[in-house]
């Protein structure tokens, strides 16, 4: 696959230990306590698997981390520097090289691929007009080289709604790679994918690691996440309840452990 060859090498910046660290983060939605005192860190070249039941707060945690939601209280550090939460947004997260690949919310359905690659980070002149020619040219290169869509009847002018689920993940992942993200967050990227396409996504997660980047990988399928993560963080009812190293447990043991935990709580 052409994924590895084109994945940019991690920038040598030895001046930090954790790419991201949360301290005492709380999030309330009205009366709902969605995140309870979250303390968590992701090392600069670590794949952290985030697991937990539906409604455990995985998505809320990710959205708080990436500036979609503002935490009610707590502190967020990126590369060991504290973030000013009052103006932390998706845009600032992008500038800090944090990129999210959402299950189904990463791409504008009716928009052509070239717009999807650059939306939010358009190449514009000083009046805000988009350099369409340049965006299309770069989008074409990403399609061909980074993602490896060759002769599949897909061009930069294709709209997202003609793509398959796997192709969509490819587009979102290719976008993250192009913008050279240090931390790539994957929100159930293998949901609704065929076996072959799941393998491609897992390969990509491994390449994030080998290229020196970090990732947070949210997954329902324990086998998938067990296979690629360095460390598993278990979330339940908005709280981190345990951290597990995959080498200490098999998938079967892990499954049993999680079921036991559900019963105890």
């Amino acid at each position, binding site marked *: 696959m052409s994924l590895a060859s084109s994945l940019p090498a991690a920038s040598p910046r030895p001046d930090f230990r954790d790419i991201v660290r949360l301290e005492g983060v709380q999030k309330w939605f009205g009366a709902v306590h969605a995140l309870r005192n979250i303390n968590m860190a992701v090392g600069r070249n670590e794949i952290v698997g985030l697991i937990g039941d539906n409604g455990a707060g995985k998505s809320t945690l990710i959205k708080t981390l990436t500036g979609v939601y503002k935490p009610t209280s707590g502190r967020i550090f990126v590369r060991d520097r504290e973030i000013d939460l009052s103006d932390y947004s998706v845009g600032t997260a992008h500038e800090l090289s944090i990129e999210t690949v959402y299950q189904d919310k990463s791409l504008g359905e009716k928009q052509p691929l070239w717009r999807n690659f650059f*939306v939010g980070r358009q190449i514009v002149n000083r009046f805000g007009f*988009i350099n369409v020619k340049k965006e299309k040219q770069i989008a074409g290169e990403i399609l061909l080289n980074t993602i490896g869509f060759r002769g599949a009847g897909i061009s930069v002018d294709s709209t997202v709604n003609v793509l398959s689920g796997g192709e969509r993940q490819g587009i979102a992942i290719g976008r993250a790679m192009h913008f050279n993200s240090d931390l790539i967050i994957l929100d159930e990227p293998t949901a609704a994918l065929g076996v072959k396409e799941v393998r491609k996504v897992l390969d990509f997660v491994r390449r994030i690691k080998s290229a020196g980047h970090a990732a947070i990988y949210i997954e329902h399928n324990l086998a998938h996440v067990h296979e690629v993560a360095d460390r598993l963080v278990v979330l339940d009812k908005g709280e981190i309840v345990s951290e597990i190293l995959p080498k200490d447990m098999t998938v079967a043991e892990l499954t049993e452990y999680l079921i036991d935990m559900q019963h105890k709580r």
Partner: protein
Amino acid sequence: MTPRPRVRSLFQIEGLPIIVVFALILGLFMYTAPEVFLAPNIYMTFLSTAPPLILLATGLTFVIAAGEIDLSFPAVIAFSGFVFAILFKDYNLGWIAVVATLASGALVGIVNGYLIASIGIPSFIATLGTQFFWSGIATVLSGGKSYALRGAEDTSVWWWIVGRFGDPNSYAWQDQLSIQALWTLLIAVFLWFILNRHRFGEHVLFIGDSNDVSRVVGINVVAEKIKLYTLMGVLASVAAMMLTLENKNFFGNQGQGYLLTAIAAVLIGGTSIFGGRATIVGTFFGCCIIWMLEAGLVATGLTGAWVRTVQGLIFLVSIIFYLFVEEPQRRAEFFARFGRRTDSGGRDPVGKVPARPARESLGPDPKS
């Protein structure tokens, strides 16, 4: 799978289906009323009276592209028209009146944007409310009176906004070429570039596609929606000025006829009722069709009562056309929603409450 090409390549030319329809209707009227449609005067009249509709519909194209709606622009035509009339006539403020009118349109737009984007009221409800509010204000302030702007044609404001390129007192058609047609063309072309080539236009399309996706990719949805409604308000105030100056008269309900015609023009043009896809070229020809029907049906010999009927029919036919051709996946969703509603509201006998028919019987939920 959606069929990729061939059929779709026909639609590569922006607004092509609607241009064809326009040409057919124009041809039909040339045949049924040749003395009107083969003479230049009707087209000169079009150039002087269609601009407000085109400006409103162009602004509305952005609003609908963002998956929202604005029902308050007829009130802007009343309110901003009043602001303009009183400042221009009673206070003789000339160009200051023009600036104040634009500001009044922007004010209405910002209020709309704030209600919809920041507070989160659905746009249909919010602008229904502001429509009553601002037209009420206009009626209260004007005391229900109309303002005749006699002598307006001697001012530079009149000449620059709705003047004629030729001798204004001549009835020869070439002297009737209006300035507002040029302004409208320039604004429409400029807004085409904003929609298709500017960051703001791209954000509007993504917001219409999905608010969630837009937030995730880093679009400030609240700020962009406020900008969007401000743009709509300003365009409506420009339309109000052109209308007031062209008629040399302000009256409180001068915006009433535009609500459905402007929305119809946008949707006939091919902008998606679900947002995310929009065409300014289509909107322009949609306006041409709506305007021409009015003139053409009357010239053909039908009474004015037929005009709304035929406009409504063409409106519905075009929406069904776009649903079937452009958005097959949305069509299923649309009919599923429709089907579910008739089911719960219609067939359930009154009194028999709990055992609602299982949802599976209605086919798969398109959203799951």
